[in-house]
């Protein structure tokens, strides 16, 4: 894929959130609607396209942990808020290629994680588990080796302690497991079909209504030897 080739050529080991999601999209994984802008001038067009409420994120291939660096502004509802947040982010990122991502705000209380990593014995493996801050705190995740069959994907969802999160709980709809299975299978395929992708994080994969949407993503590249 062109994005990957270019990043490798530029000596990068990760793709930005925007680029990472473009790769997910190619494989049919639902991602947030978003526009990447280079300057304040482009903000109005982006806002018109996305609509309020929206999220702004500093977007740079060199920055993997946006939350810790104050590069995420949530639930923006006015032009003034948007401009102030956008300017603050541009000032914080010391990267001439950095952009600001104008992103739809996904409502939903449930956050999952889906990922891919390469195991020396089994090759590309797909991870599924509880997302957001719980990924690191609870480490409630499970793996399957790619390629995943639909059966494997369904079993993987049942393989975490917090599997009830997928059911109809506290007034929320049961998650569409078919779509989730498609995502798990697709992430495995990305690993199998792209040697230079070393790891993938989709975290959080939020549940809007009953549909999963990739809200943040990170693709880690393996530089060619």
């Amino acid at each position: 894929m062109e994005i990957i080739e270019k990043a490798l050529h530029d000596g990068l080991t990760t793709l930005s959130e925007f680029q990472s999601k473009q790769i997910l999209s190619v494989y049919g994984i639902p991602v947030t609607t978003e526009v990447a802008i280079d300057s304040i001038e482009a903000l109005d067009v982006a806002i018109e396209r996305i609509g309020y409420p929206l999220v702004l994120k500093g977007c740079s291939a060199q920055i993997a942990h946006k939350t810790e660096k104050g590069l995420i502004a949530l639930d923006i509802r006015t032009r003034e808020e948007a401009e102030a947040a956008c300017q603050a982010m541009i000032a914080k990122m010391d990267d001439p290629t950095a952009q600001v991502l104008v992103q739809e705000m996904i409502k939903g209380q449930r956050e999952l994680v889906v990922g891919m990593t390469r195991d020396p014995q089994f090759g590309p493996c797909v991870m599924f588990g509880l997302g957001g801050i719980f990924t690191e705190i609870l480490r409630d995740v499970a793996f399957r080796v790619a390629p995943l069959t639909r059966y494997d994907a369904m079993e993987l969802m049942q393989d975490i302690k917090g599997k009830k999160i997928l059911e109809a709980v506290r007034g929320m709809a049961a998650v569409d497991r078919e779509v989730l299975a498609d995502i798990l299978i697709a992430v495995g395929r990305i690993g199998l079909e792209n040697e230079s992708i070393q790891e993938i994080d989709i975290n959080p994969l939020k549940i809007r209504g009953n549909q999963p949407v990739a809200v943040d993503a990170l693709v880690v590249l393996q530089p060619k030897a």
Partner: protein
Amino acid sequence: MLASSLNLDRLFNPSNLAMIGASAQAGKWGNIILINILKANFKGRVFPVNPKESSILGFPCFASIGDIPEPIDVALITTPAERVSALVDECGRKQVPFLVIVTSGFSEVSQDGMQLEAEIVAKARHYGIRLVGPNTMGLFGATASLHALMPMLMPLQGTVSMFSQSGNVGVQMMDYGQKEGVGFQKFVSSGNEGDLTCVDYLEYFARDEATRVVLGYIEGIDDGARFLKSAQAVAGRKPIIVMKGGRTGVGSRAAASHTGSMAGPIAINRGAFKQAGVVEVLSSLELIDCAKAFANYPIPKGNRVGIVTRGGGWGVITADACEEAGLIVPPLPADLIREIDQLLPDYWNRGNPIDLVATIRDDPMPTCLRLLAEWDGIDAIIALGAGFQSFNYQFSEAVQEPEELVSAIAFMTELFRRRGESPDTVLEGIAALVRSTGKPIISVSIGSDYAHRHYMERYHVVSFPTPERAVRVLKHMCEYDDFTGKIGGTLENQQSGECHGDH
């Protein structure tokens, strides 16, 4: 289709075996292994090879393998490492199909050893010889009564076959098996896996009709994809039970992503094993416990457990263990309670677990077990206190008086001795119920060290000394049933390579 159709029949069941490095000197491996083979009454013929001897242990000795007048199926080598390479040439000229290289000092010790091993493997491939090891503790084959093993042990014969990436773990399993009444069909210590790997053995055991259950001790698999594919193709038909060593090793590399940092050897292997329907156990004893149940009992068709106990507390902890393991202990229906009312005192608990309230006269256990097994609301039973055989009924010899007490003790001792000798009707009943209902009934009994082997061999009843061990085994059986049940028709699809999951 399995990836290979390598036939290892002659390796595990050879007619003629050469022992290169056979020795008359006690304490040398070339002596110990030869004695192990001979004392087990190997059905084939053994040809010791040693240029310095004319006869060893009463068998004529040959100066080189080329001097043996018969064709050789397996040559077992115990000579020092530096002599092995030349011996491979001799075996090649003799057209020996299999070499078992016990000798150590290869890739497991040094860079030079690694080169030497590569050279030997390359030579063997040139001659079309397949290698076990090097650095193997040997192999066992029940059909030929082949005990080509380093340690002095006599595994029981049975239907379980095992590959082990650690010789001593494997040998320990056969020793446990002896105590638990678990018989082996084939065993191989895979050593450094210079040529034949655990996946080759897995595929062979999968095809081997005499093997009912495959056991494995695994530390690392070079070709994970092939292992998965082979295991997947087999697991639905024949249980594969594996223990993975090296679970706690920290991740091998620093990861840039959350996914990478979560991907330790435990998590990935666990996922891969589940995907392939491989039963993963976490302790060595559990490996033998599972082998015993899977090899001798039907797989339950669900996870609902009935519990019959001779004591309340025993039932309580068993029910707890079941619930914690995700097994269901369902309440009894009214009609079943009415039937059991006929057998037990008025005050019985009328629930599951069924507490027999320590009634031993007119033992209600066999009928209770039958009523429970025939009820379609449960899939398996745990019978606590089923076996009385081999019960340790011992009295202190220090009790010398009064005379009446001494004679009462003597009477009880005799009673238990007779009971131990007469057939155990409860266990006989269990075996018959397992056959007629197809439901596993696991016994939990107190008794001497060999009680459970005795229950297995004499009554064909799977029995453990603690409820927790029984429950753990049942849990694994239920998970396996879940896998075979769900995988059903899709197994064929997986094997035909239609793996992308597009629908």
